């Protein structure tokens, strides 16, 4: 915050110089934000963490040669060593390997449910904001109903009635319950974009509703949604871990939440099995929240 306040003078000089060099090429809000982000140390740190996590999820064998499923009871609860950097858990599985392989499920849940939320929120929010009237009223009532269900409780109900392995039940539950506030944000930014002159101009040129929505309103109404969705990705990962901790989240996957839940009963004898997955989980959530905050600052014209 404070160093950002100190930056603007130097920043604007550079921008001015570049503007002249670029011979009047107008820069969009997005490219402005991108320039800000590249200079923000918090954004860089969280982006690096996220890149490492994605690598872990896509290519876990890059980080560890050990097999997370190769467990040997004779090694149960052994402390960290050069063989297994984080030690072994109660079942004698390599905690480091399990932590690395656990990234995949968490990131999948976060990414897929955010995509689901984005689709529902953008479609409903744009319909409500653009058409107004009874479409707006119906969507507002549906939003009220879903908003009445707290995320964790609703997910518990959905998951206790769906019997499927893998990440999809959790993704379904989070996507069906998490779209309400993003949809409201889309709606209000669509309403403010709708009144702009360029939309009137496009309509006068004979553009139809679909073209106006896709080409003119959508690109200008997306910035606040992207911020909310980035932060939501972090919190969805946290909710997934909580559900797995309660024993109804991911089934048949290596998951940080489930590993933490398994180990908490014996935490007095062995700290490692709880500590390492918890640290990775917290770092992941922190990275997405910090990145969301940084993107918000970069997109906020008031901070310029």
């Amino acid at each position, binding site marked *: *915050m*404070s160093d950002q306040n100190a930056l603007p003078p130097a920043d604007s000089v550079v921008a001015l110089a570049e503007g002249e060099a670029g011979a009047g090429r107008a820069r969009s809000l997005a490219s402005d934000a991108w320039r800000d982000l590249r200079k923000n140390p918090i954004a860089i740190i969280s982006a690096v963490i996220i890149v490492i996590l994605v690598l872990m999820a896509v290519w876990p064998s890059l980080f560890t040669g050990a097999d997370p499923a190769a467990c040997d009871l004779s090694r149960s609860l052994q402390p960290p060593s050069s063989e297994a950097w984080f030690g072994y858990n109660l079942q004698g599985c390599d905690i480091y390997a399990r932590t690395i392989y656990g990234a995949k499920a968490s990131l999948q849940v976060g990414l897929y449910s955010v995509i689901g939320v984005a689709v529902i929120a953008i479609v409903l929010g744009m319909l409500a904001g653009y058409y107004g009237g009874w479409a707006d009223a119906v969507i507002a*009532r*549906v939003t*009220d*109903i*879903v*908003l*009445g*269900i*707290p995320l*964790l*409780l*609703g997910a*518990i*109900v*959905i998951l*206790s*009635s*769906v019997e499927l392995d893998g990440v999809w039940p959790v993704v379904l539950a989070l996507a069906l319950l998490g779209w309400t506030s993003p949809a409201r944000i889309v709606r209000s930014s669509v309403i403010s974009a709708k009144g702009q002159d360029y939309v009137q101009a496009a309509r006068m040129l004979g553009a139809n509703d679909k073209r106006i929505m896709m080409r003119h309103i959508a690109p200008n109404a997306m910035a606040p949604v992207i911020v909310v969705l980035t932060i939501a990705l*972090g919190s969805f990962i*946290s909710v997934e*871990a*909580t559900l797995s*901790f*309660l*024993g*109804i989240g991911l089934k048949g996957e290596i998951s940080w*939440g489930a590993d*933490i*839940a398994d180990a*908490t009963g014996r*935490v*007095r004898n062995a*700290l490692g099995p*709880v500590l390492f997955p*918890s640290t990775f*989980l*917290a*770092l992941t*959530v*922190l990275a997405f*929240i*910090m990145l969301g905050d940084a993107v918000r600052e970069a997109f906020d014209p008031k901070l310029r």
Partner: protein
Amino acid sequence: MFRYIIRRLLQMVLAFFGTTLLVYWLMFAASGDPIAALAGEKPLSPSVRQALIQEFHLDQPFIVQYLYYMRDLLTFDLGVNTSGRDIGQIVATAWPYTLKLAFIAFIFVVVVGITLGVIVAMKRGGVFDTVVLLLTLIVISIPVFVIGSTLALFGAKWGLWTTNVGGSGKLLAYLVPALVLGSLSLATAVRLTRSSVGENLRADYVRTAKSKGLKRSRVVGVHVLRNSLIPVITFLGIELGGLMGGAIVTEKIFNIPGIGFELAKAIGLEDGPTVVTIVSLLVIVYLLMNLLVDVLYAVLDPRIRYE
């Protein structure tokens, strides 16, 4: 104002029926044969089966079943769970524990959250500000169950506080669980108060009050605080509803026999009626809190007029 409350109430009724219908449908329509689940392993004779189907109205269409359920729910007849225990009784014994926990957590959030938020906003940019902001970010990103398990570990290892609260009536035993339950709201309240007070400190009326020669304590304590607490109070009201529902993890970790504990138990036993009833009750609490906040908002901020 009156008309606004009436309209808001009607919206709430609609939301209540929609939400409970959704929960009811998820729990029952999506699950298999409830009679078979009730009977367990022993096969039922066709006549007993027929009688049970009649008793539970399973031969009626889904919406009629739902209406029967709502009739009983609204006349405070919560029915029995799958093992024959009265759900109303389960809720009545569990409720006081959750209420106690949620209120202590709420007091933590209000007192510590607002105080810290105001102090940090006054010293914006300082070392204390940076440290508190960093701490709140860390608390927000660590899931509640990790914070809870860690504090339970410390408590057990050095005997600092009890980790098995059980049914003990001692208020002291609830302090740490309440802190765990409120940690996320506390961190969010600090950040919210900080940004809200910070915004108001730069407002014109504060400059006017200062140049008038008012004491700093009066400028902050009366002028700034009154204006900047409005969004904070909205947040806190919604959180109080959320705290009661969100106690499921905390109650599980610290073994408190409250609503969340019963809910977790019912989920484990696949006890559909108990899950639906408890979730429906929590939804009612949540909706009522939201209504209260909206009305309070109008009372606190005279600039807001509702037609």
